[in-house]
């Protein structure tokens, strides 16, 4: 098709605003965080306490009918140390993310793990182990957001 021309790259971007409805259950959970309370809901069928609070149980497909305050301490089920960057990242790497089994809850809770020196990632990882106790570190100024908890820190009890 005639002379060869190098393919070009056209640069562009998408940035779209949204406004997301929390629903009443979500609103009450987030309001709880403002007051340093982690709220779950109990499924009437399997009796599990689900955190964050749900309107319905994913397994039993029935509406939850009871609010339960769970502990802000729990057991670290698993973790990872994030050491790469991407668009929209909330924290500057390296940082730790874990799944916590909060006292009184029957499902895991995903959040940041902190209070660990991250200068050496492998050394930091050795300070953490699945099964250890962790506790929420609350922000002074809370606005009803999952990040009202700054992170969970390892505790000795």
């Amino acid at each position, binding site marked *: 098709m005639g002379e060869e021309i190098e*393919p070009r*790259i056209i640069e*562009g*971007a*998408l940035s779209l605003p949204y406004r*997301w409805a*929390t629903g009443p259950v*979500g609103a009450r959970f*987030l309001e709880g965080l403002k007051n340093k309370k982690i709220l779950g809901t109990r499924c009437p069928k399997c009796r599990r306490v*689900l955190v*964050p609070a749900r309107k319905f149980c*994913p*397994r039993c497909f029935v509406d939850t009918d009871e609010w339960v305050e769970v502990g802000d301490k729990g057991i670290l*089920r*698993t*973790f*990872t*140390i*994030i*050491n*790469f960057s*991407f*668009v*929209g*990242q*909330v*924290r500057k790497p390296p940082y730790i*993310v*874990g*799944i916590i089994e909060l006292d009184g809850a029957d*499902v*895991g*809770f*995903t*959040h*940041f793990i902190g209070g660990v020196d991250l200068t050496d*990632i*492998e050394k930091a*990882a050795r300070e953490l*182990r*699945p*099964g250890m106790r962790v506790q929420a570190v609350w922000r002074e100024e809370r606005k009803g957001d*999952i*990040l009202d908890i700054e992170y969970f820190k390892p505790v000795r009890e």
Partner: protein
Amino acid sequence: MRKVAIVGVGQTRCGRRDDVSFPELVHEAVKEALEDARLDIKDIEAFITGSMPAPMSGINAPHLYWADAVGAYRKPIIRVATCGTTGGSIAHTGYYHVASGLFDVVMVVGAEKMYEGDPQGVMTTIWDYRYERPFLAGAPGVFAMQAMEYIHRYNFTLEEVAEAAALLSVKHHLAALDNPYAHIKQEITVEDVLRSRIVAYPIRLLDICPISDGACAVILASEDKARKITDTPVWIKGLGYCGDEQLLADKDLVWWLSAVKAAQKAYKMAGIENPVKQIDVAEVYNPFTYQELTFYECFGFCSRGEAVKLVKEGFFNKDGQLPTDPSGGVLCTNPIGATGLQRIAEAALQVMGRAGKRQIPAVETAFAHAMGGSYSLNSVFILSRSK
């Protein structure tokens, strides 16, 4: 339900494909598949297309963007997008089209152009904006948590699991050298893997798939048509698909319910009671080495907690009891929307006996898998030389 066969496959060279536009990339795979089946575009009655969530390529209805490239003028075209499982989901959808009797010849097309956007940024927008998004870092962050849980559950040391993971990486990188479509072609050692940069602890750079541009197309046909089109139809003998709960922390990350159930369903349909004995080669969707260990267990290739030992014994090597990913797998090539379909295409080539240097001898039955979301979805196909 009617029998359905794979009668042609087409794959593009994968990697950074700045040389072509996204539709042109798709077009390459479509033409390859038509040539492979010796069919004309007029023989294709319907198209099932799929890729990752549309922001991956920044064009929000990719099936419209691809319409001309697949040849869908005045024909049905559907988009199915289920994250990493997409390649499996579009093949399922294609199967339903033909098995139902509504169509005789259908083309399934999966593709991705990951170098055009920020894949980890896009994947992070998949998670729940209220409770998960700040924490779940792309795919590596999500799947690294599984590695630590696996180590803890079976009382392994990190070192023994890391070594098995590294052995898998070495094996797949070596295999990819034999695959003309593969992206990463690099011979590596266990030491290289264990010394590579930590991306999401304990996962290192060489434990992780690349991002790739690439496309794959597969043509499915009814029994009557398949017999006319080819002497080597590959029969879809069984298929299974299963989902799980929404939130990551609700799920069992080691004994994946959706992987277990998808495999069981496919095995039942295909009459497979002993996977290791009855499956000759498996194309497992393996973007992360540690994760691959859990899949082997969920698919019944070994018992729970046994994968580490078997990997070290060479059980899954090319000359082992159950060879996995002779293509080099997802670990070396990962245009996500195409990746699951590449597993099916590669498994089909193995059954046809046309897999070139990556061919496993005398393949009668092959396994092809796809996974998507945060431990959310799994798809399994059993392909066979016999109906």
